[in-house]
């Protein structure tokens, strides 16, 4: 398969581009519950594409395999989506990190550094003044700050102010979308998801660029000095209101000492420093100072040693971090329902749901709708198995004889709202099943569905029958609540996204039994 980021299937499973597509497809699938954009057929095909990658050469297992499945599935789905909806292709492009920032910002910094001397004070190389001392001080402050923040590694904090600006730059291509359509909702959600998920990667990238820019800026400043020094004679000197030659000597020895040691140049003694003081009331050009040549070398060596080299090392570290994060992306909410649902079928074992109708013989239509809803809620490969209906009153025998499969992810009881719920029967099978599975297979989630379709079909849809349905529903809630079983009343005559949502709540255990004391 042609992959735009050039990474190979053999590498780590989830790259940045993979993750971007996964999150995009997730946003689409969750906002487009009706399957208008990504149809059921597409989802099945995407599922197959993911599985094909898994079963290919060098098949992976465990989390890496899961990631590979998610990545290839999303790649397939995103391909279909992007070819259908231009806005989706645009969104995928617009959320990519713009590479030009990586070289444009450092280049800009170099140019700024280069031109800085032009704005400075004529021919003087002022030993105590900006930009040299200022730049060194600024970098010292940055190193100190990094040292301080290194200790409690706060990885949770989002990107800093500057990197946020960069991120915004990266999202320049995004337009405001009309929130009314599923596509626009999905893209809005994707933008939010993506900026949160890629925050740490963006932070690493920003760090790399900023360190590099600091180095090029320093180089620019130094280069600027050399450049000008070719054509004019710099005079090195100092002046101060408060400091005497002793203090200045001490300061210069501290700052330029290491450079002097490396280059073999000698820093003058106190008398020599005193001689370099600018003299004269108006600080005329030739009224003090010495030829700046050795000082420029000393300064350059200092800048390279204190700024350029450390910054380049830091930039390299950030780059390594960037590459690592880019090629092995950590998905947010990786253990959330959406991914678990997708992964259930990834390794060949789809979700398994067992349905036991009680005092109800659901017809083929009802079975079909329930099956569709379950697949919407649990994933496309979910298998639904219907038990033969349990007769009214036969709950004790059934519970005694029933064999439960540890592989059942869910066990649902199916009732009809046409029956009057009785604590001794409908309630008994509910609490009995709940208790039995809690002991035998605590991994199986138990719930009850009360089908409203037979009632609606018979009594029609009007205010009077609705009121009656509501009363009957309350009776059911009371009986199921007393049995402490999560229950859901649904009209199983037709499937719709809203019902799938409710169903999802039920089968994921988000719906709690209404316990009635």
């Amino acid at each position: 398969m042609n992959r735009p980021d050039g990474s190979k299937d053999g590498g780590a499973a989830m790259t940045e581009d993979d993750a971007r597509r996964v999150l995009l497809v997730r946003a689409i699938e969750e906002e487009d519950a009706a399957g208008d954009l990504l149809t059921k057929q597409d989802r099945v095909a995407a599922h197959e594409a993911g599985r094909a990658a898994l079963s290919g050469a060098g098949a992976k297992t465990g989390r890496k395999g899961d990631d590979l499945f998610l990545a290839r599935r999303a790649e397939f789905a995103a391909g279909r989506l992007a070819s259908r909806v231009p806005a989706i292709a645009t969104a995928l492009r617009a959320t990519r990190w713009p590479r030009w920032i990586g070289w444009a910002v450092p280049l800009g910094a170099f140019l700024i550094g280069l031109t800085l001397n032009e704005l400075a004070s004529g021919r003087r190389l002022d030993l105590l003044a900006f930009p040299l001392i200022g730049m060194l001080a600024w970098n010292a402050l940055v190193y100190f700050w990094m040292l301080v923040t290194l200790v409690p590694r706060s990885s949770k904090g989002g990107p800093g102010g500057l990197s946020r600006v960069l991120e915004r730059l990266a999202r320049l291509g995004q337009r405001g979308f009309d929130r009314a359509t599923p596509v626009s909702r999905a893209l809005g959600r994707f933008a939010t998801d993506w900026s949160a998920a890629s925050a740490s990667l963006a932070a690493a990238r920003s760090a790399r660029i900023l360190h590099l820019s600091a180095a090029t800026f320093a180089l620019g400043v130094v280069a600027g000095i050399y450049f000008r020094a070719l054509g004019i004679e710099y005079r090195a000197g100092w002046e101060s209101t408060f400091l005497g030659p002793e203090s200045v000597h001490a300061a210069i020895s501290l700052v330029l000492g290491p450079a002097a040691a490396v280059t073999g140049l000698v820093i003058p003694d106190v008398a020599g420093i005193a001689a370099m003081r600018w003299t004269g009331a108006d600080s005329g050009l030739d009224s003090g100072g010495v030829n700046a040549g050795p000082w420029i070398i000393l300064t350059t060596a200092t800048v390279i040693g204190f700024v350029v080299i450390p910054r380049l090392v830091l930039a390299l570290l950030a780059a390594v971090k960037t590459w690592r994060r880019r090629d092995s992306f950590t998905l947010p909410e990786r253990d959330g329902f959406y991914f678990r649902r997708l992964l259930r079928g990834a390794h060949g074992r789809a979700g398994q749901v067992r349905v036991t109708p009680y005092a109800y013989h659901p017809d083929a239509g009802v079975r079909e709708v329930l099956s569709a809803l379950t697949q919407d809620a649990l994933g496309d490969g979910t298998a639904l198995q219907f038990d033969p209906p349990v007769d009214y009153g036969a709950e004790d025998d059934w519970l005694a004889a029933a064999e439960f499969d540890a592989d059942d992810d869910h066990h649902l009881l199916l009732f009809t709202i046409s029956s009057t719920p009785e604590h001794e029967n409908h309630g008994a099978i509910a609490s009995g099943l709940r208790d039995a599975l809690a002991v035998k297979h605590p991994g199986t989630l138990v719930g009850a569905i009360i089908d409203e379709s037979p009632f609606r079909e018979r009594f029609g849809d009007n205010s009077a029958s609705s009121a009656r349905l509501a009363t009957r529903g309350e009776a059911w809630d009371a009986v199921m609540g007393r049995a402490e079983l999560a229950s859901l009343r649904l009209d199983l005559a037709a499937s719709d996204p809203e019902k799938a949502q409710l169903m999802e709540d039920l089968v994921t255990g988000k719906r709690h039994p209404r316990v009635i004391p």
Partner: protein
Amino acid sequence: MTELHTEGTAINLSLISHTNAGKTTLARTLLGRDVGEVRDAAHVTDLASGYVLVQSGADTLMLWDTPGFGDTARLLDRLRLSGNPIGWMLTQVWDRFRERPLWSSQQAVKNAREQADVILYLVNAAEDPAAASYVALEMDVLEWIGKPVLLLLNQMGPPREDTTDEIMRWQNHLGERGIVAGALPMDAFARVWVQEGALLDTVAPLLPPEKAGAMAALKAEWEDINLARFRASMTALAEALAQAATDRESVRGSTWRDELGSALRAGRGERPETREAMTKLAERLAAGTHSSTDALIQLHGLSGKASRKVLERIAADYRSEEKTPEGAAALLGGLASGAVTGLAADLAAGGLTLGGGMIVGGILGALGGGGLARGINMAKGEDGSVVRWSDDFFADLVGTSLLRYLAVAHFGRGRGEWEEGEHPAFWHDRVRAVVEKHRETIDRLHRDARRMDAGELAGGIDDVMRQMGAQLLIDLYPKAAQVLSR
């Protein structure tokens, strides 16, 4: 039960069923009184109570409302273990509150065994017979009791043209149960008196021979009461119709030719004087509809809370007719809807706004457009022109009167809890067919109205109304022929 010294014979019908099948609601409907407690939940009724359904001298037909069966499967398991199941059951001591299902079942069995001549076993027809397996279990219990059983299908939903399928479904399900002597639809919310008559006819042959005489007398009494009510209903409607047929209003200061001309041409361009006359006519029609509906409600023992519901339903009925705005039906639908909506509002306001603008507005609204020419005839009066209802309009008025009768007669007593919406469409078709069949007579009566007063005309209308009413009931419920041919 120890025999007291009584002269009369009591025939006892016990309503038995699984819990919450609607026994109390049906008892209320059959008795025409709000007895017991009604709620959509299991085990609401906890003691059996008897009510007099019909009385003939010292003889009475009693209806027993019992607590429903519950937890039947477990109960039956235990019953099967005992050599004398019913004896065992009746000697058990269950706690009325903690073991409610068992206590209720015991009360039901006690009542059936000690009181019942015939057991009316009620099923919730909304359930699938195959899934409602408690029915078979409870039939086992009833078999031990050994009394004849009639299956009543409750919760049928809105009245339907054909209920045989439903009856067959249940009868097939219960197979060859010797004790089930028959099955009848009997929806507590939408049954009519002729269905009750069919029930009594089915009960009679199941009674012990010594009670046959009393039953015949009671049946006769029941028929007298119901036929009298039917006739009185038709008379009440006929009187209102006679008023409408003879009603006329003169239009001030115009020649009838001008009026007729403009009405036929545009339908809307009537002069204020004509409109005023029509308003007066419509007001009187609304008042007549109001009082005749009230009379029907009184006759059927539905006054009070129920009467408002009846009116609302009739109004809803006509509104549904309005959806097919074609010909006279649409015209009449709009008219009656306006009238009845006004009546309902009037009733809500304690009867103080009779004849208010709302009613009249509704009627005149319906008479807009082509309806005007159809609904109202202009005639030459002694001094200028006169408006009166047209032939077509009158025939439609007859039809809606019959519909109103059906609505009231089917109205059950479960309304406190719920009610259906509109009436079934097939009623409208049947009514239209019956009116069409008698159209000549109706037109003749309407022509007679030009020279008769309402009193003279009412007798003739009453006759044709009875014929049509009886015809309609027989069309809908063929078994009614037996009663109505009397």
